[in-house]
């Protein structure tokens, strides 16, 4: 860890009632190889541990007073080794996630059809491939099932109230944990 942390303070966004997820993801995408992210938030951002954990970051969190938290996300070596392509090749994502092979809009399907369709698409993937799905809301039961099957995912709410998730097929063992 020769490089300085990249700092990101999302407390102003949270105080204004905003959703800092996309800003954090942009900051993560812009990290140099091996660089870590120092995040300041007004709560302990547990969900991020999972998201960034799935992308090969190790969180170290401490409370810094006033209910605020500092979390340093450090890339772990295993993730760097697993990356088949250098980060510079894909500035939009900056990691080992290839472009989705398809994007399925499931927002107007009755539950649980979005979950069925998405899992069908995931089952067609070769290990390492990704697929995107637009869902009516944050798919908590889908996440549970993806975790049980050893796939990784990234997701973010859409502006119109839906949710976009990109799923990366695992090699048949635990991925996002």
């Amino acid at each position: 860890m020769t490089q300085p942390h990249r700092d990101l303070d999302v407390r102003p966004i949270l105080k204004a009632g905003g959703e800092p997820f996309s800003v954090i993801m942009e900051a993560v995408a812009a990290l140099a190889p091996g660089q870590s992210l120092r995040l300041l938030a007004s709560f302990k951002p547990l969900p991020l541990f999972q998201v960034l954990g799935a992308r090969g970051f190790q969180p170290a969190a401490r409370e810094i007073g006033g209910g605020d938290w500092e979390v340093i996300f450090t890339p772990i070596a295993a993730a760097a080794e697993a990356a088949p392509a250098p980060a510079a090749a894909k500035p939009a994502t900056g990691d080992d996630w290839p472009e989705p092979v398809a994007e399925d809009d499931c927002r107007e399907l009755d539950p649980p059809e979005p979950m069925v369709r998405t899992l069908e698409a995931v089952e067609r993937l070769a290990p390492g491939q990704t697929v995107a799905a637009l869902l009516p809301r944050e798919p908590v039961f889908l996440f549970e099932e993806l975790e049980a099957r050893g796939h990784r995912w990234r997701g973010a709410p859409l502006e119109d109230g839906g949710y976009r998730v990109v799923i990366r097929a695992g090699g048949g063992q635990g991925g996002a944990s």
Partner: protein
Amino acid sequence: MMGASLSRWTMSCFAAALVAFVAAQALMVAGYGYPAAPLRAPETLLVVHLVAIGWLSLLMMGALFQFVPVLVAKPLRDPALVLPAVLCVLCGLAFLLAGFLQMAGAIEPGLPVLAWGGGLLVCGFSLSIWLLAHTLWQARPLGLSARFVATGLASLAAAMALGLAFALALSGIVDLPFAVALDQRAVPFHATAGIAGWLTFTAIGVTYRLLPMFMLSPEGDRAISRAGWLLGSAALALVVVAAPAAAFAGAGERTVALIVLAAGLCGCAAVALYGIDLAWLYRKRKRRAVELNIRASAGAFAALLLALLLLLALAATGGLAEHAGALVYLVAFGWLSGLGLSQLYKIVPFLTWLECYGPVMGRKPTPRVQDLVVERRDTGWFVLYFLGVYAGTAALLAGWPELFRLAAAATLAATLALVVEFVLARRLANVAAASRLPEGTRLPRLFIAGQRQG
């Protein structure tokens, strides 16, 4: 971002709740309690608490243990406390009912069973409030549904505290003059906190999520919904905190009545806003033909609206004290129980489907959730149920106890038929045998959800 797993004890809560609901209606058919006995007679209190705690509260707890983690996308905190909470509520209810039997002179247990019941219920409900509130707390700022649930939990705490005070007073642990004063002035506050606060608010919160989900309507924090929540919360704060505080601080009847009037106006406005919101959600739905759980819920929403009109009519004509029983019956059986049965009709098959077919989803063809029930066969049971409730309310208003028993028999028959349907759904009995259990699946157990083996 976190996954939500199936709540292990939710089906057990639903099963216990349905047993209590059937038992309460059987007592009503037998003519036990109101209207044959006075509204505050121990026999009536037994039936009321069997419905409010045994049926509605356990139903709501079971639903919330599953629903709150989905609502806030965070796992339930301290899930190991769920079973002790449910067992405490069940044992507490048993002691409480024994206490009412003791008051009625039917049994002589030689123990302050009412106080024991109150204590155990406080333990069970406090544990439930703790783990649900703790789960919600991590997800601040709360969305609309979660805010309604949070207010509901606060009201449960208030109803529980007043209930414990009654139980201690009636057991003679607190001195008698205080007990009499408490009983006469605070019972309406206890009932309002329980029925309007805990049960109604939580039910509204749940519908704000379930209805958009199953009708494919837009979700989100609309100003009108937020205003409804604020007005309703204000009404509850007035009636559950301000009015009892004023009463015990020695304020005159007139002051307390003014506080209650203000609360009533806020509450009525909140229900009206909720009604407008429901109509908006229905109009904006993308799914044209809605399923039976939504169609049946319309009977419950109609009951809520009728209850609001009845409350206003009774308040205007001064008949509220005389007809409070009919009003509470319409709210508890039409709105809360009707909504509960309607949503169970979707929730039980949905959770069963997820439990059974989740592991093979996307890998093998599976039946649809709709295949677990036979809507055509069950529409009639919901019609019978709601007709029974409306007839029962009319019978209570008109003072015809025999017609009321007949109406209770109709709702009991409909409930029993729906219980059979829930069991059939849980056993996948309506799914064609050939597609029932693809390789890699197993039949869910009736009362306990299986846990995923990662």
